[in-house]
């Protein structure tokens, strides 16, 4: 019984191939069922996100033997030529597959290093497969472990601590000035997709009031309706800027929409209360010299992209720490699997008269015991809110199970 992983991701396959090999939930369920029905795999789980499609399984025979079967199944299922697939797919077995999944859950495999969505996607894929009875003791343990590792990587490292998109960077910057945004007002100029992203982020961070201003009143109203904002008539700068603390501009215009003089006037009227402006327009919507006005903080798209880039580099420096967490849990599980294997070999061989069915029953029994022993504490660890105690418990587990072995 071995773990096998066949898949492709944004590093191995171009978008056209990823599109063709992606699974909807229904397809995932069907593919999973067929793989088991054909006797290729005992347990299956299909993980499909916009950057990857992966099939996790427990091989009936050895993992290496069943990988070609899975590959040709994928080619058949998606009607993609084996030649195209062959160059895109990767195969991982056992501890390499485990490591791959653990890294993936922590966002280490993502295009945007450390992103949070992937953990939710793994959780969802696991829940879905579990509900349809596609997983068994091995994949259950594997994915519960992966979710735990992913969560630990998020809480115990800097991965994910800093904003990673332009919209997030802008909103986090506003928080560096105003603290909590709950009693602040944001004014959004423009009602395009970028504006919408920023508005969503502002709402997510709990901004108090949202005002939308757009040349086309209609678009403004549609955006305002979706996010519970108030529409202000285009051009009424004095009213709008008097009450706003955060200003977001994303308007298609050849000339700056907000000249320095308007901002100067507004700041006078505001008694110099700080004003944070994110200028996401290209060309810029706010006159460049407006940044000199007292207590005005202007960030253009390049400034914000620069911050995102810096943070990406900072995140990359956190990778070794995240990797060490992967290693600890992986070692624990490898150790348990090893013990189980040698235990079964030694005991079952000495009892000669067992039938295949009885052997399997005993193996299931051992699995159940291990499940109780390992998953129980793991569940409690997951539920433990306080990080300090959590770490102590992990250390204790390490001592219990890995004592006498070299620490990673």
């Amino acid at each position, binding site marked *: 019984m071995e773990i096998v992983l066949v898949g492709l991701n944004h590093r191995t396959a171009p978008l056209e191939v990823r599109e063709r090999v992606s699974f909807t939930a229904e397809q995932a369920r069907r593919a999973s069922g067929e793989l088991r029905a054909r006797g290729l795999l005992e347990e299956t789980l299909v993980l499909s996100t916009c950057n990857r499609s992966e099939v996790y399984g427990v091989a009936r025979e050895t993992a290496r033997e069943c990988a070609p079967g899975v590959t040709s199944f994928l080619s058949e299922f998606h009607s993609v030529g084996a030649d195209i697939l062959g160059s895109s797919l990767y195969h991982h077995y056992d501890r390499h597959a485990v490591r791959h999944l653990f890294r993936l859950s922590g966002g280490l495999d993502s295009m945007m290093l450390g992103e949070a969505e992937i953990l939710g996607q793994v959780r969802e894929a696991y829940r879905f497969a579990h509900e349809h009875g596609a997983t068994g003791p091995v994949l259950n343990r594997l994915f519960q472990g992966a979710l735990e590792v992913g969560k630990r990587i998020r809480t115990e490292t*800097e991965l994910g*601590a*800093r904003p990673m998109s332009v919209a997030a960077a802008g909103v*986090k*910057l506003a*928080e*560096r*000035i*105003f*603290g909590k945004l709950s009693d602040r007002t944001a004014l959004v100029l423009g009602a395009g997709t970028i504006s919408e992203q920023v508005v969503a982020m502002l709402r997510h961070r709990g901004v108090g009031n949202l005002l939308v201003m757009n040349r086309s009143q209609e678009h403004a109203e549609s955006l305002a309706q979706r996010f519970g904002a108030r529409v202000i008539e285009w051009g009424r700068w004095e009213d709008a800027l008097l009450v706003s603390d955060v200003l977001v501009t994303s308007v298609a215009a050849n000339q700056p929409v907000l000249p320095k003089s308007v901002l100067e006037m507004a700041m*006078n009227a505001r*008694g*110099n*209360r*700080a004003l944070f402006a994110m200028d996401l327009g290209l060309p810029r919507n706010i006159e460049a010299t407006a*940044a000199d006005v*007292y*207590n005005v*903080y202007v*960030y253009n798209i390049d*400034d914000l992209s*620069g*911050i995102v880039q*810096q943070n990406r580099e*900072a995140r990359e420096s956190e990778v070794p720490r995240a990797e060490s967490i992967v290693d600890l849990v992986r070692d624990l599980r490898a150790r348990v699997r090893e013990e189980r294997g040698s235990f079964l070999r030694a005991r079952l061989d000495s009892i000669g008269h067992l039938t295949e069915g009885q052997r399997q029953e005993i193996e299931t029994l051992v699995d159940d015991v291990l499940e109780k022993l390992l998953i129980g504490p793991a569940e409690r660890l997951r539920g433990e809110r306080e*990080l*300090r105690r959590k770490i102590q418990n992990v250390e204790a587990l390490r001592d219990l199970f890995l004592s006498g072995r070299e620490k990673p």
Partner: protein
Amino acid sequence: MPKYTAGLYLAIRLTESKAHLFLFLTILAYSLSLASYVRLLYSGRETAGRIATALLALGLITHYFALLERARGLHTVPYHDLYGSMSLFGWLLALTYLTLEVYLRQRSVGAFVLPFVLGFFLAAHLAPADRLSPTPAHGPVFAFHVTLSILAYAAFALSFVVSLIFLVQNRFLRNRKMAGLVWRLPSLELLERMSRASVLIGLISIAIGTVLGFIWVDRLTGQYWYYDPKYVITLLVLLLYAMYWLLARTTAWRGARASRLCIFNFVVVVLSFTVVNLYLSHSHRYF
């Protein structure tokens, strides 16, 4: 002696008497607290912050006992000499900071305040103490007058540190230079609140302290007013800080300008207890 490392030897020497024990414990607590605050600033780990706060509280307690032992040993009150005054100043600075930290739930300023606390403590307690002639304590009115005044200066010092951090953070944000520190330092809004809260503590205690001073002078000499340059500069300090407190909140001066005023004000405070105390005043020696 070869058995012990130098550090252990020092530790044993320091713990020989009760006074030395408290001295040693205070230095230890403050240093570890500082280390934890710095760690918090760099790693953003909340645990480090909690440890730092706990150690600071512990340091405050042992510092208190160190002050007590010192006063007993020298048979005098802490504010009778320069070193005692400095130690008391450090203690009140730490106390003010801790109060604000708990009140505003913001720990990242600790790394900048603790060096001052530790510095004043070390300078005060490691300096060879002069044999002082025992002095009368002058009664509670005088004690409150001095303690409240020192508390005010400690609070002003804290607002000075916080205003400096404000200017640094403001410069980062205005110039769009994103050092990693930007994400760790408190928001401008919070820094301003912290500085203003601290100034308010200072204003109230210096006002009460000054009134008590006049009452004490009245009792001593029977007259409310006799001229001392210290009065003038204290009044100036009061006015300047009141001005800051109002400007930072309500006018076009809010933000960096107010912070610069706050820093300027502290320069006046420092002048008040250097030049004025040393050369001009005859009744105020150390604060």
